[in-house]
């Protein structure tokens, strides 16, 4: 692996930022150049959010363009659909099965598309879906959804598990580390 473009997409408040920071630190440990582009401010408040993580020999633009993502981790089904066109041909898609209705759906102005997972899996063969919320709950904290998904991502790269764990140590607060470690293992062993 000499370069990797990963997008983390979801709903503001789901912990995409923390996951992208772990990923960024993994890249540093592997001696890559790396850029992580984040979202702060208004759009964080329950809106559609995306963070880009790019690593390789030399990274210029912090953004990933349509058709350039090697991996998309979608924290929510509708968000998986929204960002699909960013996935490159044959790219890997990891989807959390959680559904969060956006306001236009809540107010009845729009419909939440049906059978998203089936449609995606039928058309994008390198995709996988998991109920990361249930797994996180089992691990003891529903907020660890992000780390479950990160564990799953880790298992599909050729980067050693120990590197991921070291990177997590740098980003996750000590008192939350154990529950997150459990979540990571659970995600890692899903493959």
């Amino acid at each position, binding site marked *: 692996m000499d370069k990797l473009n990963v997008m983390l997409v979801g709903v*503001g*408040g789901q912990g995409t930022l923390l996951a992208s*920071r772990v990923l*960024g630190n993994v*890249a*540093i440990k592997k001696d890559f*150049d*790396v*850029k*992580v*582009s*984040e*979202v*702060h*401010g*208004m*759009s*964080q*408040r*329950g*809106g*559609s959010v995306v963070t880009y993580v790019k690593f390789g020999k030399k*990274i*210029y*633009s*912090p*953004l990933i*363009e*349509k*058709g350039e993502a090697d991996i998309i981790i979608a924290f929510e089904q*509708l968000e998986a*659909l*929204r960002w*699909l*066109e*960013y996935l490159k041909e044959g790219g890997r898609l990891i989807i959390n099965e*959680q559904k*969060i*209705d*956006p*306001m*236009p*759906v*809540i*107010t*009845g*102005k*729009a*419909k*939440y*598309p049906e059978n*998203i997972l089936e449609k*995606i899996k039928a*058309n994008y063969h390198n995709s996988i879906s998991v109920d990361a*919320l249930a797994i996180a*709950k089992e691990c*003891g*904290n*529903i*907020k660890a959804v992000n780390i479950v998904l990160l564990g799953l991502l880790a298992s599909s790269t050729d980067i050693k598990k120990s590197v991921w764990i070291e990177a997590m140590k740098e980003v996750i607060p000590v008192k939350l580390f154990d529950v997150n470690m459990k979540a990571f293992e659970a995600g890692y062993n899903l493959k």
Partner: protein
Amino acid sequence: MKKLMLGNEAVARGVYEAGATVATAYPGTPSTEITENIAKYNDIYSEWSPNEKVALEVAIGASISGARSICSMKHVGLNVAADPLFTVSYTGVNGGLVIMVADDPGMHSSQNEQDSRFYARASKVPMLEPSDSQECKDFVKKAFEISEEFDCPVLVRLSTRIAHSQSIVEIEDKTEYKIKEYKKNFDKYVMMPAMARKRHVEVERRQDLLKKYSNITDLNTIEWRSKDIGIITSGVAYQYSKEVFPSASFLKIGVVYPLPEAMINEFAKKVKELYVVEELEPFFENQIKKMGIKVKGKELLPVMGELSARILREKLLNEYTLSETKINEIIPARPPVMCPGCPHRGMYYVLKKLKLTVSGDIGCYTLGALPPTESMDTCICMGASIGVAHGMEKARGKEFGKKTVAVLGDSTFIHSGITSLIDIVYNKGNSTVIILDNSITGMTGHQHNPTTGFTIKGEVTRQVDLVKLANAVGIDRVRVVDPFDIVEFEKVVREEINADQPSVIISQRPCALLKHVKFEGALKINTEKCRMCKKCLSVGCPAIVDKGDRIEVNGALCVGCMLCTKVCSFDSFEKAGDING
């Protein structure tokens, strides 16, 4: 040591390494994390100031008295700080003075996308622009040196993609900076007309020196490759350009004002085709054209929004990449919403019910303008709500005024609402002003302010008493009410809009995201009790969902704030039991 850092965090590191000892700011996306990170260094005095003007004045005081100081803000903050900016350009500095300004092309979290480079030209202050986190650190250190060498403040401009991108930074040790001697200097620091006239002469002389400097400093660099295409660019636009034109020659501008004219001339002469790639306004382009050089820029590239590698490929190379998904589906938008448990939701429920004209302001509560609350008529800038409501009343009369309220947050009120409240009292207005006291500055990610009782470093401090403050400026009718007590809230609003004098309602309830705020835990719907009247949907909570045949509570989102239980006529909400988190 190498570290992955946000642009903003790297700026903070640069401030530390440069030995600066005073840092001030008012929070604003995308600049907030600069000062949050500076505050982590024990040897730098840091503060959240009430607004950007005060922040800059404090930094100026620190500079005049000999310390290296820095003041940070978002682009619109520089409008607020423009008054001291234009005059500190005349006085110059003693210890180095750096002013960080973060633009927001694309308006991720802003009310306009003004290009702050024009401030550099208008105030005759040099401006630097880094293109990644490493440069954020290096340029800030350099900015302190330039400030002291040329006796002027130095602006450093960031944009969202630089401020909020992480890239690798090489950490260095702090250089000790000995605070400079303070000497009273009437001619330099007292800007009365006679002295200011002399200082203006100095400013023009300095301009000449800075223009020469811009041509020789390594902040501006030429990267020679193929001379078929030459690109003049800066900041994140440089990164997009490098991605699209890997074999072109580049003149990368680090000093965006004043421009390195000799360097530009030399570069332009040697390349066949010359492009200027810059986000927002044709700031470089117009100056370069004025030099008599033929360039392509905004005739091809947009003046609105952010650039990207894709836009450059399409507009400059006519290369369109077809990217379509294999699934044909209408995807509903997901606009930002007020969080579950947000105290503002109770207030908007009442304002919507009463069908009031709402003069709004800048903060999380601006989201009340969107469906389903849709209870905001105007939002202009920080603190504008009060003046706008007053103007509406003066234009349309008292009866209109009685159907109008101004709504603004505690931090926004201190920032620049208080002066307008004084205006209402002084000029015999009758407006009702609702101050949302949620114990924090919310939208920018929880910063303390003068009403919270804590400093940026978390030290306990004297808290502004909003009731006494309103009383002191002449508001006799001040009411404090919990926005989740919607019955009482409605009663209070009705009373105050109908009163024949101005009033202030303090809507008091802490932000639901604050750590000490505890709720009951998620609720669920008792479908046997629910009659599908859908009244609960009117509170606009993202956790309450209309499933067509039933109402459902999203247990992963619901915090149990109980607001819906107060709206429901059939007692249909009940505790969901054990859902951890």
